[in-house]
């Protein structure tokens, strides 16, 4: 196994994913298999190869600085699970 339970729990925390106790063994097993599989990449000789972030060789286009988006709060908030006075609600964040 290339990954252990603690590593998987750590990654799951970074990703904010709850992995239930009964899922953890299978998750560790499958993730380890995936990691072993992608480990093949280490065999490739990539000396001096420029990493490719994009399939096309193009530059960012710029848009003019203009207000073009109307207020769509009502429409957008129809999907919101918890609201109050136009605010999205989350359990109290204590700083």
């Amino acid at each position, binding site marked *: 196994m290339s990954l252990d339970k603690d590593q998987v729990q750590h990654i799951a925390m970074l*990703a904010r*994913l709850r992995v239930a106790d009964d899922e953890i063994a299978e998750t560790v097993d499958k993730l380890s298999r995936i990691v072993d599989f992608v*480990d093949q*990449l280490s065999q490739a000789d990539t000396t001096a190869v420029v*990493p*490719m972030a994009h399939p*096309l060789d193009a530059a960012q286009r710029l848009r003019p600085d203009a207000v073009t988006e109307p207020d769509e709060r009502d429409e957008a908030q129809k999907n919101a699970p918890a609201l109050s006075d136009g605010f999205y609600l989350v359990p109290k964040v204590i700083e």
Partner: protein
Amino acid sequence: MSSKDLHTQGLMQLAEGLENGDFTAVELVTALLDRIQAHDGELNAFITVTADAALQAAKRSDELRRKGDGGVLNGLPLVHKDIFCTRGVLTTCGSRMLENFVSPYDATVVGRMADAGAVMLGKTNMDEFAMGSSNETSYFGPVKNPWDLACSPGGSSGGSAASVAARISPAATGTDTGGSIRQPAALTGTTGLKPTYGRVSRYGMVAFASSLDQAGVITRSAEDAALLLGVMAGFDARDSTSIDHPVPDYLAGLGRPLKGLRVGIVRQHFDAGLDEETGSAVREALSVLEAQGASLTEVDLPNLDLSVPTYYVVAPAECSSNLSRFDGVRFGHRAENPEDLLDLYCRSRGEGFGAEVKRRILTGTYVLSAGYYDAYYLKAQQVRQLIADDFRKAFADVDVIAGPTAPSPAFRLGDKTDDPITMYLNDIYTIGANLAGLPGISIPCGFASELPVGLHLVGPHFGEEQILRTAHQYQLLTDWHTRCPEGYA
């Protein structure tokens, strides 16, 4: 033509029929809605059927036509993969996370189709967030392959492929990140086109892996795909990665014969791992192209075997970030009675996402995390460059690269769910085009074990005309693309 066989026709024929007044859009749409009623129980190809809206839109298009108005797709029905945002309509992405999500806006692709007059019949089932090659990761259950209901139609655009194969819809949109249009097209005997990255706007397509995702279509013929591509393609100011490149008349280019066409055959494509019957069907297809005047040349893609591992670093990395927005705060599934913020996040996401999506998020988080970035993510980006270089070199000598779309025909549901790697390897022939951003098309070219086989054609950047023409010329001489699964004629 009687309204009884309207479902058997492709887009070009339907357009002609509507134009000639042989039938109305309302009749056409009604007939297809009846097909959904009749067949979707067994196929599970749809997540949402928009019958009322479709009939209204059909009525409007009939009125427009009477006035001599209407776009190039006026009155033509199609279905959208449920990854495209549709204003006022459920957009689930095959996930519990978005089970109740109603998009407040239309994806650019959806808007362009509607503006051209197309009538949406509904939204099709798919692998959750497009992560899968069998449609088994959908929260709404797997789609069945009309050729054999015990088999997968492939994925992730499985519902789109099945609905076209089953003659429910003449055309469907799809998205293709590693083969999600072409592989299901191959497995269902349909034509599936993935355009060049940047050719079609990604705006309004729920993102899986941003540098790989591309919208395309599944149709009954290359000609129909050319018709739709002409509508979908083109610059979109809302997508920074959309390319401002002229859109040719794809239909006009289809008629050119294949004489002089240089077709590259990839040596590695016929290595071990390819099903024998599938290999024979593809070889047979290549000889048809040769008979039409194309020359076959062997090309080398030495890094091809690394395309799947490269993909399984790049795609999960991007997806792990893209899917962070699903946090139970502004939209999507929210866990009940969260104890605190962390609990809200972890449970909303833990409950909202299925197992495969979680695996990909975890894989992506891992390969980007401190200490692993260079070994995995950066390395994969370098190998991606090597793969793209291989294609560049190959396209110096050939116009089109041809080979199998998938290593085997449709597999049985449940057969590949235990081992993620087996499932991932199903996309071995298609992933390269996504990594390099190239256009590809899968067209039916025969059968293996009585199930359809796909011929895969890949072109250079913005080489859609070339692959569409090759596919069309092939379809002029063959009838594989007209074969209909039993029970759906």
